[in-house]
């Protein structure tokens, strides 16, 4: 990894702001479900906040994102408005998809959030198409596909990286390696230590990075995105992280050895980064606390908004299946 990309103070703070929003939103979501305010399948991303935050500060609204069921962090970082998001996961008419998509299929084109998929691996082939479109239009916008470590073993991964390499597409493939795919430990199903080594199979750069280190992750993201913008083709980033909760809300995650979980949680990137910003005088405790309070307030407001939004009427059931013929 190159050292050419170092986030300045404001950028570091911008990353923190995103991380705070993501972390608090995850906590609020789990609370909303456990207290019965919401019914939804929730794939907690707590512990993985750094990756999308570091990506997002390098992205524009016109850059594209294809993410997955465990992707609310990706979307929030990319700019999905909280109200639209909460109304959607609450199944309401003011949701970004009028409640028809739900937590696994949030879409928000105004911020480039084009596809959220529940099928492992499927974010990648479509991200290629978005990148190809941008390339054809002569833009220097890029397309980001995020996915998990488990997804690196499915056929769509291979086909997508190969096509992106051959067509030199402006796509950044971001593997959020949280060491588990559902209940399965990484090494049980993957025969190599680093997924980033698979980049060589396509002749593209592979970056292995600590996805819980905002500065390192920033550099990786910036490098890959710059390469894509410059027309130099795709990059595979493997960002190492950890998922602090079960696969889906309600999963007690008994398959994660206690010690492994404890070690990971002890290294929680959020408090670590928070302390670092203060230690490096990039922010004061009070400033960060204010950011957090602000996030909290915004989220509460969004929840209230969502729960007051009407459910979609039955006329929505079979509409939006086909468009109006030209």
């Amino acid at each position, binding site marked *: 990894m190159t050292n050419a990309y170092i986030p300045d103070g404001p950028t570091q703070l911008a990353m923190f702001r995103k991380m705070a929003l993501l972390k608090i939103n995850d906590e609020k979501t789990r609370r909303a479900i456990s207290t019965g305010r919401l*019914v*939804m*399948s929730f794939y907690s991303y707590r512990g993985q906040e750094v990756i999308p935050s570091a990506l997002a500060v390098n992205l524009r609204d016109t850059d594209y994102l294809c993410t997955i069921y465990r992707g609310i962090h990706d979307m929030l970082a990319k700019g999905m408005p909280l109200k639209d998001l909460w109304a959607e996961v609450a*199944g*309401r008419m003011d*949701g970004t*998809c*009028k*409640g*028809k*998509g*739900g*937590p*696994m*299929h949030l879409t928000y084109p105004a911020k480039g959030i084009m596809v959220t*998929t*529940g*099928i*492992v*691996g499927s974010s990648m082939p479509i991200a290629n198409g978005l990148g190809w479109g941008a390339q054809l239009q002569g833009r220097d916008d890029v397309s980001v596909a995020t996915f998990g470590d*488990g*997804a690196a*073993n*499915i*056929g*769509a991964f291979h086909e997508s990286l190969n096509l992106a390499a051959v067509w030199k597409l402006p796509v950044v493939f971001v593997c959020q390696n949280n060491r588990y*795919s*559902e*209940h*399965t*430990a990484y090494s*049980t*199903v*993957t025969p190599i230590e680093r997924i980033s080594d698979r980049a060589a199979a396509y002749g593209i750069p592979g970056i292995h990075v600590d996805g819980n280190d905002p500065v390192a992750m920033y550099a990786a993201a910036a490098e890959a995105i710059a390469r894509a913008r410059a027309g130099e083709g795709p990059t595979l980033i493997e960002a190492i992280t950890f998922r602090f909760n079960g*696969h889906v809300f309600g999963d007690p995650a*008994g*398959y994660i050895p206690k010690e492994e979980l404890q070690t990971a949680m002890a290294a929680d990137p959020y408090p670590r980064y928070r302390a670092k910003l203060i230690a490096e005088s990039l922010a004061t405790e009070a400033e960060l606390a204010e950011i957090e309070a602000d996030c909290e307030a915004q989220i509460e407001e969004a929840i209230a908004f969502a729960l007051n939004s009407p*459910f*979609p*009427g*039955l006329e*929505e*059931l*079979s509409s*939006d*299946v086909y468009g109006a013929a030209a």
Partner: protein
Amino acid sequence: MSQDKPVTIVNALNAALTDAMADDDTVLVIGEDVGDPEGGGVVGVTAGLSTRFGDHRCRSTPISEQAIMGAAIGASLIGFKPVAEIMLMNFTAVAMDMIVNHAAKLRYMSGGQTSVPIVIRCMTGAGLSTGGQHSDFVEAWFAHTAGMKVVAPSTTEDAYGLIRSAIDDPDPVLVIENTPNYGAKGPAPVAGHRVPIGKAAIRSEGSDVTIVAYSRTAMEAVAALPAMTEAGISAEVIDLRSIQPWDEEAVLASVAKTGRCLVVHEAVTPFGPGAEIAAVVQERLFGKLKAPVMRFGAPFNPVPFSKSLEDAHIPKAARIAERAIAMVKG
């Protein structure tokens, strides 16, 4: 399993797999998270198998549905009876080639020299707010594929008996499990019980209308009985259990008696399984029907997330009753 207290469908499926593996060394189980180190399946259907029979006979896989199906097919060609889990029915789409172009066809294309005695288990069904890519019933794709069999149990005993029969069967059998129905309780199946593939169950006898259903909708049809009785109509509820092949004989005998047939399924109506049943019934009982064969499937849209819409998407008891009553009362 003890005979005296009720068990869930998950228990019944687990017992069927356990008994099959105990009875026959060639029975294998593979799929994502099926091993005990991974919790014995995401809802516990395969719990205990890897511990009892060994990691080599019950093995968790990478997220590689084509590789899962290929492993099952290859092993089946040389004498094994693999049960492969494709977690959700929608994910059959990523392994479609292995299923329809290979598993279903190798016997025929080899002129009968080889065969593919595999079982493919998957769960599905709307009702748990899992949205457009985790809820579909697409049994029609496989029922339309020569070489495939398709079954969909709705009770504990059928869950056990159909899994056992599917494992015995010399050809690929797709077993559809209904996720919202996993916790439903029923009698503990007798060890060794078999439900013949292709045989329907009559859940309730009646004289005015035959309701043909399966999986969750069979339970909904049964739940609709009181409302129908109250409205003064007598419905015969047939739970198909097998979709390919389906029990034409039982359906035709019933409709010959009632003169009316309502087919109910959670798959979308157009080009759905109900069309086949309607086509056969109107042909075989031409001139003997009191009403056209009617179909009540899901509306022609992906499964919506929002509870209000999802509820309206599924053919439920109240609306089944309404439709049946309308058919009889005109």
